[in-house]
């Protein structure tokens, strides 16, 4: 029996000729990741178990992105704890304010993850790097602590769902709409414990930013990982960036999949996930102009990349944010910030009446920089719309693409960008 792409990467990292779904393995890691919420717990565990050295100081990334720049004293103390750990072990890839970006934007950008890698991160959206043809998955702090000490992690080899993409996206339809549509089809546990393996003719026309967005939200369908084949788009992205050897794995022709989901990209419409689950999706045609909003957030590990900034600018250029709406735009990394500034996007944002923030996860998880009051509604390009996710338990989050979010900022209602 053949192996899926994910299974091949896991087999290679476990030193095994083949693995099967359900098999328990121990795999070598190319990188492990923690942030300012999860790393402090991992540091505690690391010290408690008596580990006296890290497995490889170049293969640990610690990104202080969630509550930074530090939102309060407790957050500052958490970051301080991680900073001291990073200094003690001379961790190469410690990212603090000034170098910091949202972790799943900054790691691919800095070439720290790439094709063929096996990566774990103490953050659920670690699955983002599947866009590059890597196996990467979210874990907790204890797994991170063990990984920092041993450079290995245990896995149950996942079975897979094949997602066959055909056709090309229409104007104003993005990777965000693809993944929201998929989650709407299969549900928030539709891929529980499984891989989502994206294939088909439609992949070639998806940009790397679209792929990163799609893989990022694989976890919102319960998936262990989401993964894309390595093609010219991948190689163009990692060339001159990725510091290790590119290893290209492909699924065997006779690989076994539990099911196949087919999506014709040309048929997709801008898609919005209504409260309080990412699976509660509607097309823009079902909700255009019907939902009044108070806030728009454009940013995050899902949609804080350069194409997202350009999409927001395309809509906001020459327009104004509606009276009574706060529009907060957060480029996900320092590089994206610089590029956005140099392209003149900040002039567009600020002239429109939007606020531009330094990189942070902040509002996505109700941390800081855009908390909602009771009864308030936000359209957000982030990834979760659970109860209380962005603030008060009686607030609401609607997930959408940067095009839809920016168009909604202009009208004050959830809006189809094509109707502006």
């Amino acid at each position, binding site marked *: 029996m053949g192996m899926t792409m994910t299974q091949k990467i896991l087999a290679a990292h476990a030193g095994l000729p083949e693995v099967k779904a359900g098999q*328990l393995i121990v795999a070598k890691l190319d990188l492990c990741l923690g942030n300012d919420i*999860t790393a402090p717990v991992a540091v505690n565990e690391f010290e408690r178990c008596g580990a006296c050295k890290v497995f490889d100081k170049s293969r640990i990334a610690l990104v202080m992105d969630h509550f930074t720049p530090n939102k309060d004293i407790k957050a500052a103390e958490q970051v301080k704890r991680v900073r001291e750990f990073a200094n003690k072990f001379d961790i190469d890839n410690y990212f603090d304010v000034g170098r910091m970006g949202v972790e799943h934007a900054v790691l691919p950008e800095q070439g720290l993850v790439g094709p063929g890698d096996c990566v774990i991160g103490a953050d659920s959206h670690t699955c983002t790097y599947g866009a590059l043809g890597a196996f990467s998955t979210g874990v907790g*702090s204890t797994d991170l602590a063990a990984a920092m000490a041993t450079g290995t992690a245990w896995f149950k080899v996942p079975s897979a769902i094949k997602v066959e993409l055909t056709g090309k996206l229409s104007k104003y339809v993005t990777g965000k709409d693809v993944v929201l549509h998929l989650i709407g089809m299969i549900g928030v546990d539709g891929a529980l414990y499984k891989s989502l393996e994206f294939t088909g003719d439609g992949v070639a026309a998806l940009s790397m930013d679209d792929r990163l967005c799609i893989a990022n939200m694989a976890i919102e369908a*319960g998936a262990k990982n989401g993964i894309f084949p390595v093609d010219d788009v991948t190689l163009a992205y990692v060339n001159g960036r990725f510091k290790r050897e590119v290893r290209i794995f492909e699924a065997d022709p006779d690989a076994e999949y539990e099911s196949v989901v087919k999506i014709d990209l040309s048929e997709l419409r801008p898609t919005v996930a209504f409260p309080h689950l990412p699976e509660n999706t509607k097309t823009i045609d079902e909700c255009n102009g019907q939902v009044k909003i108070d806030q728009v957030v454009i940013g995050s590990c899902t949609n804080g990349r350069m194409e997202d900034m350009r999409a927001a600018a395309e809509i906001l250029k020459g327009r104004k944010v509606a009276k009574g709406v706060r529009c907060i735009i957060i480029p996900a990394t320092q590089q994206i910030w610089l590029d956005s500034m140099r392209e003149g996007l900040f002039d567009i944002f600020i002239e429109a009446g939007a606020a531009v923030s330094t990189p942070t996860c902040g509002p996505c998880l*109700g941390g800081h920089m855009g908390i909602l009051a009771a009864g308030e509604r936000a359209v957000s390009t982030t990834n979760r719309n*659970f109860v*209380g996710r962005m603030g008060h338990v009686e607030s609401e989050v609607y997930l959408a693409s940067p095009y839809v979010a920016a168009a909604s900022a202009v009208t004050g209602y959830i809006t189809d960008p094509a109707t502006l």
Partner: protein
Amino acid sequence: MVVQGKVHKYGDNVDTDVIIPARYLNTSNHQELAAHCMEDIDKDFVKRVQPGDIIVANKNFGCGSSREHAPIAIKASGISCVIASTFARIFYRNAINIGLAILECDEAAKDIQAGDEVKVDFDTGVIENLTTGKKYQAEPFPPFIQNIIEKGGLLNAINNRL
């Protein structure tokens, strides 16, 4: 290991944001986290919960963020076991890694009601509802996982390799 306690019952897709809201993640202190456990789904949980109590929920319990603070908050609040139809995978891993006992059993998860007195035997996987007298068979932990739990968590299990 056998545990027994009163049941707190929840539905589908209980996410980690309601188990422990992110506004409290600026600490990793177990007792501080426990003080806000389940706050956004059941604000009286912390007042009602007694040591040994059991959480029973339907599918995809613990979905969302990878925050280990979620199973930590549940364990520190005194909960002895979580029974659900299914668990989200990161929560499942985290619970085992920190030594919070969990069992998947769809029939028990659907049948058992809030306030029922339930007994769980982890060696056999038998869940007994003492209120109704009904018994359910869950899959006991595989040896690989039992080893981690017996050693008191993943870090203790790998200690001899460091």
